[in-house]
Every structure is written in structure tokens, then in C-alpha cells.
């Protein structure tokens, strides 16, 4: 791919981005009960903690439809980055994947997988930034889906709206401690797919908890 090509791409919006944006215009009715909603729970692993600079290394996601995690509708992708190439040489089998995915194929798949469903993740803001940066070359500016952070939801359910997480114990709402608290065995921790599966199980438990205190539909869940 030449430089011109690359520049050109940046400006032009890819067709699959347009059709994703079109799809997102379809809003979810505020009255829809929680057990009828569709969620995409996702996680990324990156080369560092700076979403502007660091690159995506792997991606994992599962779909929750009508209260069920559908294993069949899960995703797992690995990417090639200059950094992990070096790493990969060192720890070949352990870290890296047989077939890294091309960014374009990934972008297409991701957007058609997301549709207009609710995006869920733990600290999801970070993952979304990383993904937006990765997809910007196809003309995607921003994800248009409703977004739900499991960390925020857990805090809201346990402490209420106005709780300031920084005043609590450090790490009290990390994925690790939440999984421990909600009795979810920490399998495959620190792989993107494994973490998305853990987060999805956490979400199922949080949603039941939410329903108990009267958070029953889309509107009240996203408040």
C-alpha cells in the first residue's frame, strides 16, 4: 500500500463504516426489558496503557442475547505489531498466534458484529479509544452504540450513583476483585477473549442484581 493510498483512505469513509452508521440510527426502545437486550462484551490487550500511542495486540468479544452468552457468537483476533514481532521471536509459541488478522478484515467483522447493540466492557473507555484509533483509517470517527461499563455498573449497584470510586480501596472494582466477589473463577485471565468471557459472566450476574432493585429496562439500565 503506497503512501497516497494510505492518505486517500484516511479521508474516504469505507462502505462498511457507512452501513454500520446507518444501522446505528436504529435506536433501542427505552422500554425494552433487560432480558430482551443484546450486548456485545469486549476486551482488548494492547502494547501499553496509553490509548493514543499504544497498539492493539489482541481482541476478544462475546455476544449476550436474551440473557444468554452465545459461545458460537464469540470473537478472538490477534494483530501483528512491530513490537509483538520482536516479542514473538523471543517467546514464540506462548504469546503469538498463528494467523494475525488484517486490520481491514477485522474492522469489517467488528462493525457488522456490533450492529447497534450495547457495547459492554470493564473500563470500556480505554478499549473503545484503542479500537477507534485502529479503525480511524477506514473513516470511523466514533462508535455510535450505547455503552455500558461493568465497573460503573458494579459501583452503581453496590454503592449508588454518586459514589466516588477514588475514595474507596484501590482495586476494589478491578475485574479481578469483582470476579472474586461474584464467584467467577479466573480462567484465561489476561487474554482478550478470556477476559471478555469473564466480563460477560460478571455482566449476567450484575444484571440480575439490577433487576432485583427495579432496574428493568434499557432506559433505567443506561441511566
Amino acid at each position, binding site marked *: 500500500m503506497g503512501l497516497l493510498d494510505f492518505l486517500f483512505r484516511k479521508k474516504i469513509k469505507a462502505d462498511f463504516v457507512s452501513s454500520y452508521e446507518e444501522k446505528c440510527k436504529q435506536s433501542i426502545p*427505552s422500554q425494552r426489558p433487560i432480558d430482551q437486550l443484546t450486548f456485545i462484551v469486549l476486551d482488548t490487550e494492547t502494547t501499553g496503557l496509553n490509548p493514543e500511542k499504544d497498539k492493539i495486540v489482541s481482541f476478544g468479544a462475546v455476544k449476550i442475547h436474551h440473557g*444468554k*452468552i452465545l459461545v458460537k457468537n464469540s470473537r478472538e483476533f490477534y494483530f501483528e505489531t512491530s513490537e509483538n514481532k520482536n516479542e514473538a521471536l523471543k517467546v514464540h509459541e506462548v504469546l503469538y498466534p498463528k494467523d494475525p488478522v488484517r486490520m481491514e478484515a477485522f474492522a469489517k467483522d467488528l462493525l457488522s458484529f456490533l450492529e447497534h447493540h450495547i457495547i459492554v466492557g470493564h473500563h470500556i473507555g480505554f478499549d473503545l479509544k484503542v479500537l477507534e484509533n485502529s479503525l480511524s483509517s477506514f473513516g470511523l470517527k466514533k462508535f455510535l452504540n450505547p455503552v455500558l461499563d461493568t465497573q460503573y455498573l458494579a459501583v452503581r449497584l453496590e454503592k449508588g450513583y454518586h459514589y466516588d470510586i477514588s475514595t474507596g480501596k484501590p482495586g476494589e472494582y478491578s475485574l479481578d476483585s469483582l470476579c472474586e466477589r461474584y464467584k467467577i473463577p479466573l480462567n484465561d485471565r489476561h487474554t482478550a*477473549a478470556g477476559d471478555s468471557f469473564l466480563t460477560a*459472566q460478571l455482566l449476567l450476574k450484575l444484571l440480575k442484581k439490577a433487576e432485583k432493585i427495579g432496574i428493568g429496562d434499557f432506559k433505567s439500565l443506561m441511566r
Partner: protein
Amino acid sequence: MSNVIVNRVKEFLKQFPPFSFIDEKSLEAVAREVEVKYYEKDEVLFTKGEEAQDCFFVLKEGSVKLFDVKNEQENIIEICDEGDVFGVLALLGKRPYILNAKAQEDSLVYAIPVLTFEQLLQQNSRVSLYFAAGFASGQVVVRNDLSDSQKARSIFSQASEDKGLLIFTGNSDFNYSKEVLTCSLDSTIQQAARMMGEKGVGSIIIVNEQNHPLGIITDKDIRNRFVVKALPFHTPVSHLMSTPVLTKSQSSDFSDLYLTMVKSRLHHLIFTEDGSPDSPVTGILSDHDLLLSQGNSPAVLIKALMNTDEVKEMAKIRNRAEQLLRYYLENEVSMDFVANIISEINDIIIQKALKLAELKLQAEFPEAKKVKYCFVSLGSEGREEQLLRTDLDNAIIFENVPETALEETQKYFLELGELVVEILLSCGFQPCPAKMMANNPKWCQPLAEWKQYFSEWILTPTQDSLLKATIFFDFRAIYGQKQLANALTEHIYQEISTKNIFLNFLAKNALLNPPPLGFFRNFILEKSGEQRDKFDIKLRAMMPLADIARLLVLSHKIVGVNNTFKRFEKLAELEPNYGELMLEAGKAYEILMRMRAIEGIKNQSSGRYISPEDLGKLQRQLLKNTFYPIDELQKIIKVRYQLDYFGN
């Protein structure tokens, strides 16, 4: 798909039989299809009598109890632990659950689709043996400590002892007929049929001199094997009867009877004195009796619906209605009756949904809630023909309000519509892709606006307005002020009487449907797309009939007959010279409805696309015969309208 996740699921399953008998590759295929669900303590997984879901369960963590309720007492049969497999009766086909399952602690459950597993059952004899052992011994849980097939086999061999059958309810739960109609082996079919007719029963047992059962003939046999084949009246019963018969002693317990009928897929079981075929007949049990014993009669379902305010409960009852529907279809109960019952159930669900929605919104809209309105169903539901839960088409008509109140009023009804649609979706109905639903601002309007709509469609019959006409003209009031719907109907007839030419357009539209048969009398199949090589029964056969019935009913200004086959019955009265054709058209429509519903239930789809290859020869012929009245009617319409029109 994520390998990490699939592997995680696979590794778990692998620890427990029968999954431990499955090779890596097949097990991976199973793991891929798993759905993970979380149940809180005291949440119900399934209830007794409810139709089996299309999956069975493996407990990942927590604890689930299986229990029966007898005299309002909970009788715990099993407590499932990690790795236990339960709800396996689903593998025997869509039969109702025999127990209740409830989470005893917060539980994570893996649901495994039956479809995935069925193939495995056929290929892997160890797995199937394992399950067979479980079924035969009446086990409700596939225990994880029976880890080798040796053990499975030994249980299998003692199956007849039925020691595990305590799990079923006692004998008192079902009724059967003690008075059995019998005839001797040398009777003719005509005699047997006359006896059945006189007693008003659906079956007759053929016995020898000692009253031992030899065979059975049912209504269905007479229709399918006698009338269709045009056998002579004096054919002996021995020629037609099903033999040998399945016999049991009436002191057998329910479970035994139940499983026998499930496994043999027979509809009747004959009771004899000692349970063998070589003793006198004492009674007969039909699967209808069994169905009733599980609380699946329409009356029971309707009563249950009336008594609940829980959407989840409503959804469950609607699922049970589907089971009833299947039974009716299989047993060729008259379409009129079936459509009536199912429409009644659907209507009650809608009425319930509206009441729930009204309650929820009343505080927020103190003024708007006083406005009178009518909720109407459109399309097939409006015609009382919606057997399967296909697309929702509905609308709200509210009374005219002053300009100043309009915005608030419409806001109220839109929210009402939204809530109702959401409840209906939760009950398993599908949304209308064209959004012809009460939550669409366009179809949630005051009466004046609705009159305007219809006037416009009638005045300017464009392609689009004709399409709308076909859906909206079949509206039927479900809830609220029926006068509003009646006022609209009156308005429509007034408009049509001054713009007669509208009917010509409607007639033309009714002839636009593509023909069902090609030049060589072969079915015209879909050429491309997902439904390639299938026959579109809705577009090519049902719509032409529904369109013609609507047109003719409108032309005679008939009010209140919405059903397509009832419309044809009415038309037969009004146009006696075409009486026979009209009746035939009505019959044809009933057959098409039945075929579509059977197809839909079989494939869990809308039933719209049928593959002719899968139909038996008889059914193919039956389907073709339904096209004859379409053809004839279209000829009549052509003469009556189009030619007149061009003559103008």
C-alpha cells in the same frame, strides 16, 4: 469464534460423562454451540408441563433442584450438582417437562442445543447408550458418577424394573375412557364408521371373541387410508386397522404410560385386564388425554393467561399454546376451531399487555389516559389467521382531541404502543419489518387522521396505497372502544361507494401475484437467495386468495367477517352461482394455512417457504389442488373488473 472460550467450555464438559466419551473434535463442535445462562437463587429454569426447550442443561456451578408439586407440596426428586446433566427429555423430541427445575443457589448453566447433540447421539453409540440407560430407568439427571459405559449397560438391562419411576405423578392425574367402542374382525369399514359416528368417538378397537384387542382404527385412518384411496365401503376392518396394538394395564403408573407413548410415537394406548394383548379390553387412553392431564387444554391456558400479570408467565403460556397448536395440526382438528383458539389466546395476551401498559403509564399521563382509544390488529392477525408468531402488525386509533392536547395524547399512546410491542416481543412474536406497529407515530393517530389515510388510499390508488390497503383493510378491534374501529369501517364503505373505481385497482392488484405453477404444472420455486429452490406458499398461494376474498367482501359491503375462509363462506351465500367455487376456495385456504403452520413449527420458522421435495406425493397433490380455485377466481375477477374498467 474464540478458541479460548470454546476451549474453556470444552475443558469443563470433558470432565463429565457423557461428554467424556466424546472425541476432541466432536466435543469442540458441541462446546461451540453452548449458551451460558445465569439463574439467581429461586429462579425457575423450567416448569412441569411446559414444552421442552430446544436444549438440555449441564450445571456449571451452583445447585438446581428438580421437584414435583403434589397437593401443593413440593416433593424434591433430585438436587443437581456441578457437572450434572438435566432436562434431557428434550432429546426425545418436544415433549413437556415432567418436573419443575429451580435454582437452589445462584447457578451458572450451560445449555446445549438438542440439534447439535442429536447427530452425536446417532454417531456415538456410547453416548446414546448412556442416555438410553438414563431414559429407560426414568432417571431425570444424568449422574456424573456413572462414568463408564459398563455401568450404563447394566442399568439398561434392568430397564423393565422401572425403579426410578417414582419421579412421576400417580395414576390419579389422568382420565381415560372406560367405555370402549369395539367391533369384530369381520365388520366392514362402513359398519365401523357408522358405530364411531353414532357414539361420537374418534377410534374403534377390533377385538376377537374373547374381547382381546387385535387392532385399532381411528378417524385419521379412515380419512387418510380409506377415503383418500377410495376403497369400497365393504372393505373389511382388518384391511385398515393398525396392528399390533400397544397394551398396558390400567394400573400402570403414569410415567410408564407416558414414556411408552413418547417412545412409540403412537396416539392410542389400550388398557387390558392384565396389560398384555391377550386379555380383555378395559379402556383406552389417547395422547389427547395425556395432554389434558398436563394442563394443556385451551380452557386451562386461557384461564392461566387471565390470572397472570407477569410477562414471563404470559410468554410461557404462549409457548404452551404452540404445543397445543402442534397437537391440533397433527390431528387435523378443523382450521376454524384452531384459528379461533389461537387468535383468542393472542388477543388475550394483547389485552393483558395493554392493561399492564396502561397501569404503568397512568401516573405520568393523568390527562391523556382518559382519551378513548381502540387497539387494532392488522394483516393476518386482523384476519384471525395468525397461527404462528410471525410479524406483528397493529395500530392505535384514538378519539379526536383538541389541537392543544394532541401532542401529549400522541406521546401517551406512542409510549403505550411501545410498551405493548415490547411485551409482545417478549412473548415470542416477531417485529414487523415495515414497522406497521402501534409504536410507529404514523400508525398511532386520532380517528380523523385515520379517516384521512383511508380516503387518500382510496382516492389515489398508487402501488404503495394498494399495498397498505391489503394490510390495513383487514383491521380488527382487539381492545378499547370498538366504536372507533366501527366508525372507521363505516367511513371506508362510504368512500368506496363514491369511488367505485378503487375496487378495480384493488382487483388489478389481486391479480398481480405471481402464479404458483409453471407451464408444465411444476411448482415455481425461488430462484436465488436463502430460500432457493423453495416454494413461497404465502406469496404464491395464500395472498392471492386473501386478496380476492377481501376484494369481493368489500364489493359486497360486508362488515365484520375478517377470516379469509369465512369470507369465502359468506361469498358462497351471496353469489350462489359461484357457491361451490367459493367454498372450495375457503377449503383451499384452510389447507394452505395448515401446511404453512406445520412447516413453521417443524422448522421453527415462519413456515412461508416450503420445499416441495420434502412433501409426500399426496401432500404435493393436495397443494396443487388448492391452486385450482385461485385460477378460476382470477378469471372471474378479470372479467368482472378489469375488462369493465378498460371498457370505460
